């Protein structure tokens, strides 16, 4: 498969980019919800509009009312989300949530997917326990209880946790902390008794929850996939989240880069446009090269995932690590090249920096993924 978008994908990209630049713009979404101190951190009306464009069901099977598309297409949407810093539950719900549900019983899919496709249902993903992404270690546990399970423990930094209709929770059903086996995924409905959430606003204005499960009773049909054998499905959910976050970060990077180069073309100092100074030109050109490379890595990873290639794991980590590094560079250079105004709230560049920081941590930062590349390569 050639490493660029085919005609259908290019068309999708065009539609989505127009939509996101209008409806999903920083002014209409991010700044608005932030300034209103919105408790969800995103607008539900926009989620509905996503649905009208068919985006909410992008990864859902056609039998479930979705489009049955792949990670390349999801990546197109996420890049535009990134470019416009559009707050939305797309990544947690339509990408990671649906990936999890695609491994669930018909019954469970029937419970959530139609709502997702309709732009009504929101899902959150509860994997990490602590400030860093460490899915190899899961302490939160679910013990057998009658026909169902009793869940206890905690999850941290669950994005949109408090707004979600259900949380996809990775819990330990047997074995010890770092065992590969013994993991089970559950769909925990928002009103489950014994579940409490302590919501906090993050630097990028998103809302995240510290979730506590205090003997939460779950029916047997809350299980997604196999009991004790959830590691593989979790791997798929993680890959989807990682490659998706990489695509979004590439979008953040190119958005930041775009406004920065525009600034270089218009700001005058020393009687010249600052873009005439070679010191800035070279840094911009370097950044451009890095961006191109990160974008290629993301597309490659998306394609390998869609092909079900055994190289996908490695390339997903390459993409997340590379996108993280490059987006970090893009936002830092962006703020610096804006000079003093880069520090003001009025200019958007600072918002890119904040969003990048949050995306970097989401599903593993570049340290984590470079380490994973080393391990997967056998050293």
């Amino acid at each position, binding site marked *: 498969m050639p490493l660029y978008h085919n005609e259908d994908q290019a068309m999708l990209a065009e539609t989505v980019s127009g939509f996101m630049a209008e409806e999903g713009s920083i002014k209409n979404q991010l700044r608005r919800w932030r300034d209103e101190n919105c408790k969800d951190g995103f607008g539900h009306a926009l989620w509905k509009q996503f649905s009208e464009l068919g985006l909410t069901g992008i990864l859902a099977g056609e039998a479930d009312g979705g489009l049955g598309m792949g990670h390349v297409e999801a990546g197109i949407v996420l890049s535009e989300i990134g470019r416009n810093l559009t707050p939305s539950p797309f990544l947690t719900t339509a990408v990671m949530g649906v990936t999890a549900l695609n491994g669930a019983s018909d019954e469970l899919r029937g419970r959530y997917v139609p709502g997702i496709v309709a732009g009504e249902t929101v899902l959150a993903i509860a994997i990490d326990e602590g400030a860093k992404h460490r899915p190899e270690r899961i302490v939160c546990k679910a013990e057998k209880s009658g026909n169902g399970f009793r869940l206890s423990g905690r999850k941290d930094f669950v994005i949109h946790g408090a707004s979600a209709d259900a949380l996809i929770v990775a819990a330990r059903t047997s074995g010890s902390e770092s065992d590969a086996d013994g993991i089970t995924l559950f769909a925990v409905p928002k009103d489950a008794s014994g579940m409490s959430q302590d919501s906090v606003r993050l630097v990028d204005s998103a809302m995240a929850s510290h979730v506590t499960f205090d003997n939460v009773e779950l029916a047997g049909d809350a299980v997604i996939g196999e009991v004790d054998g959830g590691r593989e499905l979790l791997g798929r959910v993680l890959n989807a989240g990682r490659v998706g976050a990489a695509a979004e970060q590439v979008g953040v990077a190119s958005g930041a880069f775009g406004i920065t180069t525009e600034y270089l*073309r218009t700001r005058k100092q020393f009687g010249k446009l600052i873009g005439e100074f070679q010191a800035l030109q070279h840094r911009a050109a370097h950044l451009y090269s890095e961006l191109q490379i990160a974008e290629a890595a993301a597309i490659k990873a998306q394609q390998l995932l869609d092909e079900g290639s055994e190289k996908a794991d490695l390339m997903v980590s390459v993409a997340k690590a590379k996108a993280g590094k490059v987006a970090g560079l893009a936002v830092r250079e962006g703020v610096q090249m804006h000079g003093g105004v880069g520090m003001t709230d009025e200019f958007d560049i600072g918002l890119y920096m904040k969003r990048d920081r949050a995306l970097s941590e989401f599903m593993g930062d570049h340290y984590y993924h470079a380490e994973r590349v080393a391990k997967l390569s056998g050293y």
Partner: protein
Amino acid sequence: MSDLDVFRREVRAWLEENCPPEMREPVRDEDDVCWGGRHFTFKNQAQKDWLDRCIAKGYTVPAWPKQYGGAGLSAAEAKVLRDEMARIGARPPLSSFGIWMLGPALLKFGTEEQKVHYLNQIARGEIRWCQGYSEPGSGSDLVSLQTFGEEVHDPVGGDHWVVNGQKIWTSYADKADWIFCLVRTDKTNKYQGISFLLFDMESEGVSTKPILLISGSSPFCETFFDNVKVPRDQIVGELNRGWDVAKYLLGHEREMISATGGGDRAGALGAMLARHGLEDPVLRAEIAQFDVDSLAFTAMSEKFMDEVKVGKGHPAQPNMMKYAGTELNKRRHELVMGAGGSAALEWESQASNDGAKARSWLRTKANSIEGGTSEVMLNVISKRILDLPGA
């Protein structure tokens, strides 16, 4: 089965039959490289057989049309051939500036006669070419070159140029048979006063003097032209419009050099070095970061090649590839030296294969200089791709 699958099968069978086992070993040193040319001596029979068989199939230049010595393969078929050769670790049958640089320029700018004549020679490895671009005062600022060609109308001996001047950094000038050379033919016009000439290095008035490199080898020369007579029909493209040819050729040169950054070796660095133990965690971490960058760059190269095939992508993109690829390759060799420790310092010993690691490390420093420096690449990206002001 698709046509391409059928083709793959044929190629596989042909390679199995025709690529000698000795030609499936990794290239160890300069001696293993087949450069062709009038004075080339083959290292062994296998090297010669491999070249002859590839010439017969058109596989030294598979994508060139058949009438010019190629196999007339489509881009997709050429990729199949490349992949299949890579799969068995086959060495390139022929390495040549003619294939990488001059050939593409001739295909675009040459007359039909020039194409038939020169391209076939290149495909058969009969003429070894060198590149006469740089001059002592004209490196990055190539267009300032001074070597001068004066037009002479000679009713007896034929119209020709008389070339005077000096070139520098001419790689393999002392081994090359012919040179493709930039010569000023109009002193009043900077860009539109340069012509692109081809001539025999054995012409009267051509002399070369080797330059010793930090790697201990001496692949390049100062090249002097003292009243060299060049026949009129050995100009490529129009008179005074050689800069167009020169730039087009540079695009191919940059593309070729950029390939040093990725390819088959991508992502393998850590795994390769770890065989000898990687005890320093900080070094290991740097290597892991390198492997991330290298694998990502390989994806970029693949994307670039895919886009070239369908005419997508920015025309200045090879400059970006050259910049990123060569910087990456330099980093790679720094890490190899770091991981090798003192053993990598041995300069003349059997254990070190005569300092192969150290010499390669030193050689890679030229990657970001030859064919246009990294700084010049960044200038081009700023101006031509990013459209920043003050070009």
